[in-house]
């Protein structure tokens, strides 16, 4: 039972490196392999969650070496929550990819696509579990390369250019992270998160400058990778030009795992003591408010539907950072629950957009009027996602916004409730016209939508995601219980 986290990571790795060999001459096989491995791992993680409920959180030592010698995996509720989210969302995306991938990636590239996808899943899971800076650095790099390659695999020139931009900026981010790790190692002498946390108080006393510089470098480094507001410039290009399943996983999961790693490092390693010596949390609050408003305003100006969704991601990352940096229990819960909720919504929206592009080849939102008559299911679930983004009660987006607002109130910063309300208004302004135009508008003259239905393997994931959005909006109890435990773990330290 205790070995399950490593089993989950290893099976993804095995799948990743078996698919180029197995897929030679049989391009359908890697996809099936991936669609077996990822759901199976999700089940294994469910078993692990039950097990952790019985025996409590624990650390797993790779190679049987306890720290400071070995690498430790941290099996707690936060990592389990993230790993579950990664596997559940990836499963849905993989099912969708079966129908959609054929027209975006050439057939001989499919085996490489699944290699990269599984590698990305393995790296993200490892990042969620890692309790060691060394490991975090390595898997950050693996995830970055896999993500860049997932964008560039389409071999259109926009994708290649976006991928190059992403790569260069991420490399700067990795450089900063490595520098921060070096500075932390200099004053604490450890790479293990728990041990560094133990040394932190003494180190902050003796070398306050080192700790502060390391903290800022970490925030900037992971901020670039997780598209924190002023550092988000790579995201719209990268996420809008990638193939739709890639956009979904990049927007839904990849940027968030870096945010989670940053949150874990800030709250458990640096802790309240260091945070209180400088207005780090306040700066994060301001930046995330800027992200929420700025991202929404940028999205308002877009006409390309995938670009609009990409800018919306910038705003939603702001919610997550806002919730965490409120440093109250409800705020943290709101930020954490928004990770999963936003993953559901944004995956749904990207996949629905992908289905529309798959059928009509149109990306311009002004040309999509009347599309609901031809694609009622796709447009219906798109509307669910859009309403959920706006935060209508009954959808899951409302739950996270409610917790964020409560958290702002608890923390004694009610000004941020206004930010949340304002952003809901802006979300409404750019999402609802698409829905209204699609349902009520008449098709433009000369735009003939083909009557072909999209394949079943694309409809099922869309409907499942739409139902999940409503389910977690009406019955959020079990999810909130898991998130509460994760948040308690973060906030207690």
């Amino acid at each position, binding site marked *: 039972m205790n070995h399950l986290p490593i089993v989950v990571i290893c099976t993804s790795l095995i799948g990743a490196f078996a698919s180029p*060999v197995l897929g030679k001459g049989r391009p359908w096989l890697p996809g099936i392999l991936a669609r077996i491995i990822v759901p199976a791992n999700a089940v294994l993680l469910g078993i692990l969650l039950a097990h952790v409920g019985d025996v409590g959180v624990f650390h797993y030592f*790779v*190679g049987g070496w306890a720290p400071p010698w070995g690498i430790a995996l941290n099996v707690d509720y936060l990592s389990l929550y993230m790993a579950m989210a990664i596997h559940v969302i990836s499963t849905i995306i993989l099912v969708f990819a079966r129908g959609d991938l054929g027209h975006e990636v050439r057939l001989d590239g499919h085996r490489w696509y699944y290699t990269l996808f599984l590698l990305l899943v393995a790296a993200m899971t490892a990042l969620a579990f890692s309790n060691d800076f060394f490991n975090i650095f390595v898997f950050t790099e693996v995830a970055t390369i896999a993500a860049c390659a997932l964008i560039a695999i389409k071999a259109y020139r926009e994708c290649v250019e976006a991928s190059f931009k992403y790569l260069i900026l991420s490399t700067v981010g990795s450089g900063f992270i490595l520098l921060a790790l070096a500075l932390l190692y200099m004053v604490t002498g450890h790479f293990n998160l728990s041990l560094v946390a133990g040394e932190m108080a003494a180190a902050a006393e003796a070398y306050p400058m080192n700790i502060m510089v390391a903290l800022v470098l970490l925030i900037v480094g992971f901020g670039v990778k997780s598209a924190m507001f002023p550092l988000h410039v790579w995201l719209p290009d990268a996420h809008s030009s990638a193939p739709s399943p890639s956009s979904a996983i990049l927007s839904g999961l990849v940027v968030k795992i870096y945010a989670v790693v940053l949150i874990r490092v800030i709250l458990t390693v640096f802790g309240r003591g260091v945070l209180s010596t400088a207005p780090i949390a306040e700066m994060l609050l301001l930046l995330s408010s800027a992200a929420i408003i700025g991202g929404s305003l940028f999205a308002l100006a877009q006409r390309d539907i995938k670009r609009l969704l990409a800018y919306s991601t910038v705003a939603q990352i702001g919610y997550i950072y806002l919730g965490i940096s409120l440093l109250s229990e409800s705020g943290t819960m709101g930020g954490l629950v928004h990770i999963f909720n936003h993953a559901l919504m944004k995956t749904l929206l990207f996949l629905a957009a992908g289905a529309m592009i798959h059928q009509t080849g149109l990306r311009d939102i002004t040309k999509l009027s009347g599309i609901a008559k031809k694609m009622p299911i796709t447009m219906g679930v798109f509307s669910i996602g859009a309403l959920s983004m706006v935060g209508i009660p009954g959808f899951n987006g409302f739950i996270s916004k409610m917790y964020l607002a409560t958290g702002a109130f608890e923390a004694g910063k009610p000004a941020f409730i206004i930010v949340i309300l304002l952003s809901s208004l802006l979300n409404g302004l750019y999402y609802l016209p698409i829905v209204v135009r699609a349902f009520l508008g008449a098709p433009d003259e000369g735009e003939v939508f083909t009557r072909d239905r999209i394949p079943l393997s694309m409809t099922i994931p869309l409907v499942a995601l739409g139902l999940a959005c409503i389910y977690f909006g009406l019955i959020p109890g079990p999810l909130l219980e898991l998130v509460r435990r994760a948040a308690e773990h973060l906030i207690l330290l």
Partner: protein
Amino acid sequence: MNDFVLQTVTQILMPFIQVYGIFVVLNGHLSPGGGFAGGTILGASIILYALTVDVKAAEGIYPDERAEMVESASVLVFVLLGLISLMMGRNFLTNIGIFPSPETGTLLTGGFIMPVTLAIGAKVASTVITLFTHLFEEKKS
């Protein structure tokens, strides 16, 4: 590049470079170097041959299919070696003494480290060659 001196020197030097690369890989657990450095040296020897003598001939030595095979297989060997210790009821990648009577400084020590280093060496050598050939030719990367 049809330079006689260059070609002859390359052909004479190749075995020595390769033996050195294999030495570095095998002694990864005893001396500096290891899978990564040794693998790069091995790969570089093939690249040297390709550049000075003949790209086509070098590709005959190491075709693309074999490279894909080696790259996947070596990672799988690494992971499976780690899973062996899992099956024996220990933690992932726990060092199980597969080489008896370890004596400091001899080759057959270090348990899993030598097989793992060999796998890394194979992977790195093959990756270096593939990187070169894919960049060199007008092929989809």
